[in-house]
């Protein structure tokens, strides 16, 4: 596909063009700049970005599927970025989140993209951010980023979201798991999925107790049974209320600003990385001497 046809395709919201465009940006292709500068900024700033995180098996993808079904009733166009880990050994990945959403596979207004972490330090946040904007510019009014909530790069991605859900399920560990640093702090809304299973009420109570600590507003827990679509309407109402509060209070802009600056920083680092590596190799520095001092010297001389 030529770049002109791809840009035309993006304007026409053609699924092939959207898929290609995300790949080109993800792969650092030279046409990425053309694609990213062609996007509709109004659509990008208007879209709602929803982060869904939680441990494997909590039901993130199934919940995402339920949210898609519900939003499609209002004929909204939806984008989903489903992130799974790359193997640090082979660099390969199994991207399996899509299985739970296959009922929407032939719906042209549900744009799903699976993304592997590719072991990048922070670069994933930058490429996921680009994918979000491509989808938004192609008419997706809600974009869901789904990722396992462990590890720094996954946490960074969640910062792209306007609203973040933490999905937990009974039987995956006690409240101490939830108290561990990171998970609860990033969440705006706590969801106990598989609420029809034993232990769901206790988990919800424990979460409420844990989440209350150190926060002035008590975190209410939403209960869902994603496989049956139960609790999803109520959850979406909560998300909409919170989103509108955040828009009024300036919280949404504050988060967008933070995410924006972070993304720009990451692109700077992504662009600098190969140049710096080439420079370091070219200098063929002696092994003796402190790496930090050498790094400073190289940067000063750039």
């Amino acid at each position, binding site marked *: 596909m030529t770049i002109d046809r791809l840009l035309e395709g993006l304007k026409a919201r053609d699924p092939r063009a959207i898929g290609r465009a995300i790949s080109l940006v993800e792969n650092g292709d030279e046409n990425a700049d053309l694609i990213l500068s062609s996007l509709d900024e109004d659509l990008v700033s208007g879209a709602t970005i929803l982060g869904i995180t939680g441990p494997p098996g909590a039901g993130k993808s199934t919940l995402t599927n339920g949210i898609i079904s519900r939003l499609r009733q209002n004929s909204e166009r939806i984008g989903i970025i489903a992130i799974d880990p790359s193997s640090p050994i*082979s660099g390969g990945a199994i991207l399996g989140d899509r299985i739970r959403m296959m009922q929407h596979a032939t719906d042209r207004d549900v744009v799903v993209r699976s993304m592997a972490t590719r072991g990048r330090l922070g670069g994933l946040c930058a490429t996921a951010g680009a994918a979000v904007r491509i989808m938004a510019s192609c008419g997706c009014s809600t974009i869901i980023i789904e990722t396992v909530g462990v590890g720094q790069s996954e946490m960074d991605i969640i910062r792209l979201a306007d609203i973040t859900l933490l999905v937990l399920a009974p039987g995956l560990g006690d409240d101490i798991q939830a108290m561990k640093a990171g998970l609860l702090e990033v969440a705006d809304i706590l969801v106990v999925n598989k609420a029809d299973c034993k232990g769901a009420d206790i988990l919800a109570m424990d979460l409420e107790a844990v989440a209350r600590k150190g926060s002035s507003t008590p975190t209410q827990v939403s209960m869902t049974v994603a496989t049956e679509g139960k609790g999803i309407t109520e959850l979406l109402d909560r998300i909409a209320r919170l989103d509108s509060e955040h828009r009024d209070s300036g919280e949404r802009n504050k988060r967008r600003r933070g995410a924006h600056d972070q993304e720009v920083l990451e692109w700077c680092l992504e662009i600098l990385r190969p140049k710096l590596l080439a420079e370091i190799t070219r200098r063929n520095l002696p092994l003796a001497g402190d790496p930090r001092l050498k790094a400073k010297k190289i940067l000063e001389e750039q």
Partner: protein
Amino acid sequence: MTEKTKKNRVLVGKPGLDGHDRGAKFIAQALRDAGFEVVYTGIRRSPEEIAAAAIQEDVDAVGLSSLSGAHMRLFPAVVEALGKAGAPDIPVLGGGVIPDEDIAALKKAGIVAIFTPGTPVDKIISAFQDACAKK
């Protein structure tokens, strides 16, 4: 410019009503271990669903598995669905319980490679690598 980080991306899935996914999962894992990003779409998919997913995911190749005898109908149907959806260039590979006499007909219908039981996994991986490189 940023570093180029092109990865081979493939889709592995099972069209039709056959629910035996041991083979498909084995191939998906073998490809992962060979450095591929594998979008796994699971069992009981229609050719149209597989084609739509392949396009959204912008994969370089599609791998199909069938153990139920429906390959003569379903493998060409996926090739056709990809063509109709505007992606005739995405190569389709297939494997499973496939009688030797069907192989020529399947290749004629546009499936670029067919693997029968007992095929060494390295051969399958290198066929996927070739398919991805050609695309």
